């Protein structure tokens, strides 16, 4: 077999490892999937937000929740990578004749799969609550694509942070910090309804870009035509920074 074949089979083996871990922790997996649903119900019916939104709040909220779920994925990635590093199992992988990048590829593949399932569950619940897309199949698929692209950027930020910090204490800090960062977005309310400076911060949040573009593609309120490019550019820019940083950090474990 050639090096490329090894890289593929090893990546697949590492992905299967993550899937096997799901099988061992079904409760954790379900909680992960239910949590965004809970947030959707809470903000949709309990908190009753939607300041400054012209239109149905559910149509505004669903894209925001989808984007928020992708953003919170960062934390899950970081926890998993930190655990591996601290258990010494990464040492075993690195001392084996396997494609080294497979450790990171397996992590990415499993996390992306989990997030894709998370999207499906959230969309199914939204549909049950009466949410519909007006964007047609093309718009729908485009929106899902943008969300997964955003998740992919979050994933590599998570890997990088875990490799830099390498300690469970910092994971906790990030677990808390994703909340304000996630909420300083247009996920729940329109930036126009906020004080000027706050609205500006919120509008610049990459998560807001994705949420706005998804709203546009779904044809709901809060969408801005032409925003799709911003929702493509932001995650790509983040990837351009954090992907090489993370890969370099991983290679530097041998320093």
């Amino acid at each position, binding site marked *: 077999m050639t090096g490329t074949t090894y890289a593929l089979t090893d990546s697949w083996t590492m992905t299967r490892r993550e899937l*096997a871990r799901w099988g061992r922790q079904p409760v954790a997996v379900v909680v992960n999937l239910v949590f965004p649903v809970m947030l959707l119900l809470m903000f949709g019916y309990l908190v009753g937000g939607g300041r400054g939104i012209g239109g149905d709040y559910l149509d505004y909220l669903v894209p925001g929740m989808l984007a928020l779920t992708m953003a919170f994925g960062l934390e899950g990635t970081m926890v998993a990578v930190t655990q591996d590093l601290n258990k010494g199992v990464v*040492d*075993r992988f690195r001392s084996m004749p396997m494609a080294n990048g497979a450790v990171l590829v397996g992590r990415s593949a499993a996390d992306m799969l989990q997030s894709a399932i998370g999207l499906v569950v959230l969309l199914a619940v939204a549909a049950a609550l009466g949410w519909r897309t007006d964007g047609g199949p093309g718009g729908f698929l485009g929106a899902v694509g943008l969300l997964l692209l955003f998740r992919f950027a979050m994933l590599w930020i998570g890997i990088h942070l875990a490799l830099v910090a390498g300690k469970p204490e910092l994971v906790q800090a990030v677990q808390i910090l994703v909340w304000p960062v996630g909420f300083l977005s247009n996920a729940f309310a329109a930036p126009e309804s906020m004080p000027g400076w706050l609205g500006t911060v919120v509008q610049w949040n990459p998560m807001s870009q994705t949420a706005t573009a998804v709203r546009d593609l779904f044809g709901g309120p809060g969408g801005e035509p032409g925003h799709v490019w911003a929702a493509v550019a932001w995650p790509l820019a983040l990837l351009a920074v954090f992907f090489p940083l993370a890969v370099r950090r991983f290679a530097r474990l041998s320093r």
Partner: protein
Amino acid sequence: MADAAIVVEEARKTYGGKSAKSTKNPESTKHPKNPENPKSARNGGPALDGLDLTVARGTVHGVLGPNGAGKTTLVRILATLLRPDAGRIEVAGHDVVREAYAVRLRIGLLGQHAALDEELGGRQNLELFGRLHHLGARRARARADELLARFGLAGTGRKAVRQYSGGMRRRLDLAASLITEPEVLFLDEPTTGLDPRGRAEVWDSVRSLVDGGTTVLLTTQYLEEADQLADRISLVDAGRVVADGTADELKAAVGGDRVDVVLRDAGQLGAAVALLPVPQDTVTVDTDRRLLSAPVTDRMAALAGIVRALEEAGIRAEDIALRRPTLDEVFLRLTGHDERVKETA
């Protein structure tokens, strides 16, 4: 050397300020035997400071030293996990930096911390590592079965490794490092933290491996462990080999047994030192504890001689005891930094 499985010449490694964080925990801190080793890597000095080592094929080589001596750094470099700053380092005939892949094909590693997926079961772990060794699904499965049976883990079923006892975990870890029957096996403090039974289990496994022809490099803090398992022993301190030889050679160099004499009156210590039938510069004196300590060669003759000499001189002893040298004393004799001797003398 053609028949050498491991060659290390002038190996040097210093952890840099920033990158030291990512290569976390160069030495375990669980058993601080040498908390104030001024030259240890944790105090900013080099972890390896021109270390030389040669291990013949098919032998067990013990690397004995206190915490911070550089044992784990050495193993991590040999296992291609860490790049040396300088030196020629070859494992199974391949350079650990330039031919890391070739080295990885030929080694097994049992690190200080269990390198397992704790959520998965024993079989799942072994199959995972087998696949990553490119055995293919069927052979990986067969090999997992074989190893589980060999290490007495066949009955563990689907139980997660998290729920294993310390000894079971160590055995599974060892099994995982033997998937491809490596030419060279590194064991980094394999029994640290195990109870006596777990320790005996690991020792038995290592012995049976060596019978199969594997070369083993073993680090340990325990003189006894090195004595039990190793053909040759290197004593490491502050990143250098300070002595090596067979266990017998090292013990002879240390002087075998020691005698401790506790006097009733500290004022007589000086007179007692002159009476002991051993070279005076080998005697250490601890005034606070009214204690004399000296290496002796013929234990019974020395004991009888000391008792008689003290009696004739009218010096009253509270206690006289023969004992084996401690690891500290071995190092004190062999490392050359004798701070503690000067302090107490």
